C-alpha cells in the first residue's frame, strides 16, 4: 500500500509538469486555433536561460522568476511579431509555423548556451520527509503545491474575472467575441505569453530531474499532448484532468509493469481512448456549419 501511495505521489509530481504544459497548450489552442507544437522546445530554451542565469550566480528563485518573465516575453514576441501577422493563414499553416519555431529553438539553444547539458538545481533541497509511510522530497511537495496554486488561480481568473470571461468567450467563438467588443487581440497576446510561461515553468521543474539539454522536454511535450487528447481539447480543465490521470498512470505502469515500456504502454492506451472516446473524456462533438 505504501509503495502504491509512493507511486501516486511520484505520479502527482509528473502530472504537475504535464498539466502545466497541457494547460499552456489548450489556452493557446482554444483561443487562437493554433496547436503549438513548439511549446516543449520553447520550454527547453527557457530552461537553458534559467540554468545560464543560475550558473552566472543569479539566486535560484530569482533565476526562475526571471525565466518566467523572459518566457512570457518570448511568447509575447511570437504572437506580436509573427502569429498576429498570420491571420489569413489556415490552421494547418499555423501549425506548420509552430514546427518552424521548434527548429529555431533547437538551433538557438546550442548557439547561445553551448553544446553541453547544463545543471539546474531543485528549488528546495533537503532530505525526504516521511508522511504516513510515504517518503516525499520537499521539492516534490513544492512542485505539486505550486502547480495546484497556479491552476487554482488560473481557473479562478478564467471563471470569475473580466479577463477570464474574455478568454472564454473568445474560445467559444472568436467572431462573436469580436462583435461583442472583446479585445481578441489582447486575448491572444495574453494566452501566448501565459502559455509560454507555463511551458517554461514545467521545464524548470523537470530540469533538476534530468539535465538541461536539447532533448529534455521530449517526454513532457509528448505527455502533455497525450493528456490533452485524453481530456479533450474542448475544455480548459479537460487536459489538466488528463494530465493527472496520465501522470499517475505513468508512474504506476512504470513501477508495476515495466519502466522501460511505460511510454509505449501509455501510447497504446491513448490510441485505445481515441478509438472508443475520440474526443476525449470531456470532449463534445460540435456540428460544423455548412
Amino acid at each position: 500500500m505504501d509503495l502504491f501511495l509512493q507511486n501516486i505521489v511520484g505520479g502527482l509530481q509528473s502530472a504537475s509538469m504535464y498539466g502545466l504544459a497541457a494547460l499552456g497548450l489548450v489556452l493557446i489552442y482554444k483561443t487562437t486555433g493554433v496547436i503549438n507544437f513548439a511549446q516543449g522546445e520553447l520550454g527547453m530554451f527557457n530552461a537553458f536561460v534559467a540554468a545560464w542565469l543560475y550558473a552566472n550566480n543569479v539566486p535560484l528563485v530569482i533565476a526562475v522568476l526571471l525565466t518566467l518573465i523572459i518566457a512570457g516575453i518570448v511568447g509575447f514576441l511570437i504572437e506580436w511579431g509573427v502569429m498576429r501577422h498570420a491571420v489569413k493563414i489556415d490552421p494547418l499553416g499555423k501549425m506548420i509555423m509552430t514546427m518552424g519555431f521548434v527548429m529555431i529553438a533547437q538551433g538557438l539553444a546550442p548557439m547561445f548556451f553551448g553544446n553541453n547539458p547544463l545543471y539546474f538545481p531543485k528549488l528546495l533541497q533537503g532530505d525526504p520527509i516521511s508522511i504516513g509511510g510515504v517518503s516525499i522530497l520537499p521539492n516534490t511537495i513544492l512542485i505539486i503545491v505550486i502547480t495546484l496554486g497556479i491552476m487554482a488561480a488560473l481557473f479562478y481568473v478564467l471563471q470569475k474575472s473580466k479577463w477570464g470571461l474574455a478568454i472564454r468567450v473568445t474560445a467559444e467563438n472568436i467572431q462573436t467575441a469580436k462583435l461583442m467588443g472583446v479585445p481578441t487581440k489582447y486575448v491572444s497576446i495574453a494566452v501566448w505569453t501565459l502559455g509560454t510561461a507555463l511551458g517554461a515553468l514545467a521545464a524548470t521543474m523537470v530540469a533538476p530531474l534530468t539535465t538541461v539539454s536539447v532533448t529534455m522536454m521530449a517526454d513532457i511535450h509528448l505527455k502533455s499532448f497525450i493528456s490533452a487528447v485524453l481530456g479533450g481539447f474542448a475544455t480548459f480543465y479537460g487536459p489538466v484532468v488528463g494530465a493527472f490521470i496520465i501522470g499517475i498512470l505513468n508512474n504506476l505502469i512504470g513501477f508495476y509493469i515495466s519502466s522501460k515500456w511505460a511510454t509505449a504502454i501509455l501510447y497504446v492506451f491513448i490510441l485505445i481512448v481515441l478509438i472508443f472516446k475520440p474526443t476525449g473524456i470531456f470532449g463534445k462533438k460540435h456540428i460544423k456549419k455548412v
Partner: protein
Amino acid sequence: MSILNKKQIQYIIFGIIAILLPILTQAKGSTITLLASIGITAIATLGFNVLLGFSGQISLGHGAFMGLGAYISAYFVSQMELPFFLSLALAAIIPFLVGFILGLIALRLEGHYLAIATLGFAVVIEEIFAEFSGFTGGWSGTKTTYPIIFGYKFDKLSVYILIIIILVILMILTYNFMKSATGRALVAMKKSEHAAQAMGVSLFKYKLLAFSISTMYAGIAGSLYIHFFRFAEPKLWGITLSLDLLAAAVIGGLGTIGGAVVGVAFLKVLPTVLQMLPVFGDFDGLAFVLTGVSIVVFVMFYPRGLINIPNDLYNKFFKRKRTEAEEVKA
C-alpha cells in the same frame, strides 16, 4: 517542344542529368554522398508532400517510418538473406500497413490528431528501435552491405544511380495519380471538405490513403538509406528528421512533385554553404535556425515554394508584357 512539356519526360531528363553529373565531373565520394542523401530524402519528402501538400495532414512520425523501412530492409538482407529487391518491397509494404493501422485510429477525427498520434509513434518507436537489439542492433546500431542484385555487387556510385532511378519512377507514378481521380479527390478535400464530401469523396478513406502512401515512400527511402550508408542507429529517426521532411516539403513547394527535390536540395546544401562562409561557420545550429525561419517565412509569404519561383517570375515579367502588347493590338 510539346514532348518536353510533359512532366514525365521532364522528370526523366532530371534523372539523367542527376546521374550523369557525378559521373562526368568525376565527383568526390563526399559529393556523391551529398547527392545520394538528397535523393533519399527527396523520396521521403515526396511522400510527405502527398500527405501534407495534397491531403493537408501533418505527420511527425515520418522519420520513424523511414527508420522502420531501414531496419526491415537491413534485417531481411543481412539476417534472412533475402534478395535486395524483396527486402525493399517489404520495407515499403510493412510501413504502409503500419501507417494504415495508425491512420485507421487517428484519422477518423477532424483536425490535428494525426500530428499528435505520429508524434507519439515517433517517440515510442525510437524506444523500440533502441530496445529490440536483435532486430535493430540497439543503441550501437546495425550494419548492412551495398545491395547485391542477381550477383551484381553495387558500389557507391551505382547505389546512387539506383536511388535516382527509384526517385524518378516514384515522381512519375506520383504525378500520374495526382493528375487523375485520386489526386483530384485529395486536392478537393484539402481545399473544401464540404465540396469533396458532396462529390462523393470519403474524407477518411482519402486521408488514410494519402497517409499510407506517404509512409510507404518513407519506408522505401529508409531502405535505400541503409543500403547506401550501410549503417543506422536509433537516434537518426526522431522528430528532427520528420521536421526536416516537413521543412523540405514546405520550402520546396507544397503540393508539387519537383518541390520535394528542390526543397531537400536547398536544406542539404544550406549547411555546406554556411560552413564555407567564415562568419557563419562557427555556429552550430545555425542551419537549424535558418530552416525554421524559412518554414515560417515560406508559409507566411510564399506558400507556393521555391519550385514556383521561376514560373512566377516569368509570369510577372513576361506574361504581363505580352498581355499589355495584346491590349495595345486590340
